[in-house]
């Protein structure tokens, strides 16, 4: 009897969760489906969900017409470049705070966190003017610098929470066995730190890929990443839903896949360890 109720309850909640989940996901699904339609099918009334003549022409057209590959490469360079640069700066900092903390460590961490709270418009004007004067506007270099700096607090914090979990006793044990500092780092710490570094990297590539304040304000044509490329579709001429969908699908697909792998890290990275 009781089992029957729980079974029925499970089926009910399953149906409810799937329905609501599909509803939330629908705009993405709809974008993906529309990208395979012709422009006239994309605005057909009534709209068809699956039964239309599938075509790839939008993808080929977007690629040909707008030099899509350059925007894509800009996104890759900016997000991966800023993440790697950020890690290079953050790993030593997080490392030393996790393994040889001083009485200032906590305050420094809180201060680092507070720099992330600075709203971008608070520094928009000077950054724009500095970039203009030094020829950094619309360059990949300029964007990598800005993106590194705005994500550095998150990178340091995430690494810190991961490094904190590496037990200190293991270091002492290695030291007892006569390991030098270099050996300690290479054979003991690095293997334990790599998963944390990889997760941090993943989350930050995602954040930088989707960043849409600085990328829109500091780029024009040369260094514009996909966020800016898609924004150019906001003033359309003629039929464009299917092409917009194709461009959008290509812009979000890689990050969607990476994002699904980083669900757990997302919580840790964006709450600064306040929710585990």
């Amino acid at each position, binding site marked *: 009897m009781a089992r029957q109720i729980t079974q029925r309850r*499970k089926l009910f*909640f399953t149906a*409810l*969760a799937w329905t*609501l*989940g*599909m509803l*939330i*996901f629908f*705009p*993405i699904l709809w*974008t993906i489906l529309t990208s395979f339609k012709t422009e006239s099918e994309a605005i057909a009334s009534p*709209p068809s969900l699956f039964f239309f003549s599938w075509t790839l022409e939008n993808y080929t057209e977007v690629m040909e017409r707008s030099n899509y590959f350059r925007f894509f490469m800009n996104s890759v360079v900016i997000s991966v470049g800023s993440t790697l640069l950020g890690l290079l700066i*953050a790993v*030593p*900092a997080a490392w*030393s705070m996790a393994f*040889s903390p*001083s009485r200032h460590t*906590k305050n*420094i*961490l*809180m201060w*680092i966190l*507070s720099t*992330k*709270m*600075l*709203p971008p*418009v*608070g*520094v*928009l*004007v*000077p950054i724009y003017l*500095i970039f203009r004067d030094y020829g950094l506007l619309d360059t990949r270099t300029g964007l990598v610098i800005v993106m590194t*700096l705005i994500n*550095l607090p998150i990178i340091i914090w995430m690494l810190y929470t991961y490094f904190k979990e590496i037990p200190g006793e293991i270091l002492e044990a290695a030291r007892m066995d006569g390991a030098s500092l270099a050996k300690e780092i290479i054979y003991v710490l690095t293997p334990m730190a790599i998963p944390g570094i990889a997760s941090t990297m993943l989350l930050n590539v995602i954040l930088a*890929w*989707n960043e*849409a304040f600085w990328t*829109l*304000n500091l780029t024009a044509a040369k260094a514009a990443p996909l966020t*800016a490329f*898609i*924004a150019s*579709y*906001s003033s359309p001429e003629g039929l464009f839903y299917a092409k917009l969908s194709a461009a*959008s699908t290509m*812009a*979000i697909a890689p990050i969607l896949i990476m*994002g*699904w792998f980083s*669900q757990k890290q*997302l*919580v840790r990275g*964006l*709450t600064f*360890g306040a*929710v585990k």
Partner: protein
Amino acid sequence: MATTQTKTAARFMMSPAILLLLGWMIIPLSMTIWFSFQRYNLLMPGTEEWAGWLNYRYFLTDPAFFSAMANTLLLVGGVLFVTVVGGVLFGLLLDQAIYGQGIVRILVIAPFFVMPTVSALVWKNMFMNPVNGLFAWIAKLFGFAPFDFLAHAPLFSVTMIVAWSWLPFATLILLTALQSLDSEQKEAAEMDGAGPVSVFIYITLPHLARAITVVVLIETIFLLSVFAEILVTTNGGPGYDSTNLTYLVYSQALLTFDVGGASAGGIIAVILANIVAVFLVRIVGKNLES
């Protein structure tokens, strides 16, 4: 254990990060403060002069500032309401024993990974467009006249788009918090005859309190700076109906090139964000000690 040598090494390892962040904060921010007291327009070079509090007086008495403040609060408040309530409900739902939980979770989380310009344009054109949008089609299906969302309810529309992007974040964090709830406590309460509602009010909700606070604070920090969604859907209009503080400062800086006025607005945005930041930093700090 911490010898002088390791201490020096630690300082050396930390300094690049600290110096960079310090520079990133202090140099541009003090420039913004300096500009905010200047009469400085990029279109009128050579007319720069000390302006005292004039920029602040203009900015703070501009009717656009009042609509921008109101819109900022409505946008942040609206998105917070939708995402926290929705996040709790989705969290509870995903915490149940259901088939294919992993897949449903992926479906719900997906919008968070969609870049703002894509989500804004997809909603604007394929859903909210009064001629070809899906909502218009549904309205016609039921015999209603299609509604032009972005022309007649621009702020509401932007709020919906942003809420869709942030619902996954709230869900994910609240779900994580729910999963750390001790099930024995719940079972004990149920054994004592507590119904699902009182279990939720007296056990689940207090347990979620801190996670909800964290969601509210972090979302507020990000939502104060909503920009791309407004830029590609409404351009802040019609009039100032969907202009928030961030967008107002942007338009003063990069559309009318009023460096002084935009800087004053930027400083006001910084002060606003700091009020929220103080609470967030305190909560995270408490957690760091435990």
